């Protein structure tokens, strides 16, 4: 598994970013997530906060940081919606934790792995939203596979473009 496993002969590379990037990139993702549906209409099959969460969690390789970032992004999204605050928070907390945990074990420089992880974590996040809403809270919450699947695909496509751009912000050790 040379592709999936991290190279054991060298330490996994951990990237650092300027503090401004940590503050502005998530905020920009949240603002764009709230504003872009005005332009894209019903084709808003993307979740920029999740993509950013996965990116930082994968590259920082810190489950705690990934967990906190996911929780913050999810809670912020919930605050902008009219749902209960915490639904997306739980989902993105788990997604951030999983992304960082996987990032420790696989080669995150590979774009295919990044896209695959984005796709899978999007499905996990959407599934958790449904689970928390329907089963944990017992709310009347309808959902469609179509939306979940296309959101995961949209996130993967965005990650394909966004990750190389964010890589340029990194400060290599």
């Amino acid at each position, binding site marked *: 598994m040379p592709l999936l496993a991290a190279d054991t002969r060298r330490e996994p590379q951990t990237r650092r970013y300027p503090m401004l990037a940590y503050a502005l990139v998530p905020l920009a993702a949240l603002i764009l997530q709230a504003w872009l549906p005005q332009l894209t209409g019903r084709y808003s099959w993307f979740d920029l906060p999740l993509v950013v969460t996965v990116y930082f969690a994968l590259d920082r390789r810190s489950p705690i940081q990934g967990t906190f970032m996911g929780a913050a992004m999810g809670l912020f999204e919930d605050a902008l919606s009219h749902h209960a*605050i915490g639904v997306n928070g739980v989902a993105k907390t788990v997604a951030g934790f999983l992304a960082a945990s996987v990032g420790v074990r696989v080669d995150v420089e590979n774009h295919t792995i990044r896209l695959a992880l984005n796709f899978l974590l999007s499905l996990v996040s959407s599934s958790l939203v449904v689970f928390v809403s329907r089963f944990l809270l017992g709310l009347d919450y309808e959902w469609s596979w179509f939306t979940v699947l296309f959101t995961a695909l949209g996130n993967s496509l965005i990650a394909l473009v966004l990750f190389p751009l964010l890589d340029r912000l990194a400060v290599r050790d």
Partner: protein
Amino acid sequence: MEPFFLRYRNLLVLLALLLAQIIGLAVQVRRTGDGRSSLDAGDSAGVRLVRLWANALVSPPEKLIHAFGLGAEHLWQNYLDLRDVRSQNQELQKTIDRLRLEQAALLEDAKQGERLQALDSFQEKYIYKTVAAQAIGSSGSEQSHVFYIDKGSADGLDRDMAVITADGIVGKIRDVFPRSAQVLAINDQSSGAGVILETTRIRGILRGNANGQPQIVDILADKRIQKGEVVLTAGGDQIFPRGLPVGVVDRVVTDPERDSFIDVLITPAAHLDRLDEVLVITSTQPRFSPQDQQDMAASEALKGDEAAAIKEQKKASEVMAERLPGLIDPNLPPDQQPLHDSSNPVPVAHPPQALHPDRFTPGNAPDPAAGEVPPAAPDAAQANPSSGSQPGRQEPAAAPGGPHTAPASQPASKPAPPGKPTTAAPRNNQPQKNQPPKNPQGGNN
């Protein structure tokens, strides 16, 4: 213990965060009477504070982006795309004049409606005051169909105010902040609006489904509901005024949980996906705004000019009519003019004169008090013109009764043998030959 926490610190942090959020969720959800769970209609103070912070962080950049977009559009429209503006202006002026006339008629109808409602002690809500607002952002969540507008409580907005566009209803205000407000769209699963189908008059509740399409739920299966039928607001929800367009029927599907019920999927009239400018109905009191009153005055003035022009045309047509030859006889009094003779529009139809009158002929029946008719009776009958000159007046009563009453009235007379004429017949016929000819159609009338 330290190695345990160090070893599992990642997992413990995750569990702690999840536990905190789940406790927070449990606080926000409550049980309803029917055993289901639902969110509180109004947020608690803590939740509202979180939403306020998030909104305060996101709204200014969104307003900035929106203003930048509007500025660019404004620049293009005002400085670079001025072709045909003059002709468009003239066309618009004509349209305004026409719409003012139409508005005057509509406002008259509205006034009449108010008067009738006052008589019925029923207050209908009309739209009288709106606030225009720009949609600046959304929730960003596919399952939360809410969006934000750039007007808030400082502009007079409040919760549960209806939000519409010129095409149809959009939603209602769910939460209000000082400079912005959150609008719950009609295609959200938690929304609700009373609607009515225009043709079949079936009422229902409108809410969104999982795909973000509004649908009317909880109505019994009805084959009359067809695709394309217009859906309007019913006005019973105390939010949307009655009669506003909602959309048209897209298709009808069976309720997956109940076979006898159907869901009517609606294509919304308003473009919910591409909202830019919306109107918030801030007042539905039955009164006219100063702007409405000003428009009414302008419309009345326009109507006055139009009425004067119509009066001039009518006067000219009367002058022309006097100069034209007509059916007016100057020798007859006005009430007998042929054109104005309406005394007998349907002449009375009289039966034709009998060719061979006999004693059964109306007017020839002998008087029972006089006994048998003497031979000189024809002369007497001739001397009394009332008996023979007005047969028409007696015919309706005498004709059916004559054959039956005649034997009783002539007890002494011999009945004539059948098929043989009596001797009295020629006698009775004699004086009638001397009477002037009568119009069988009652022309003497």
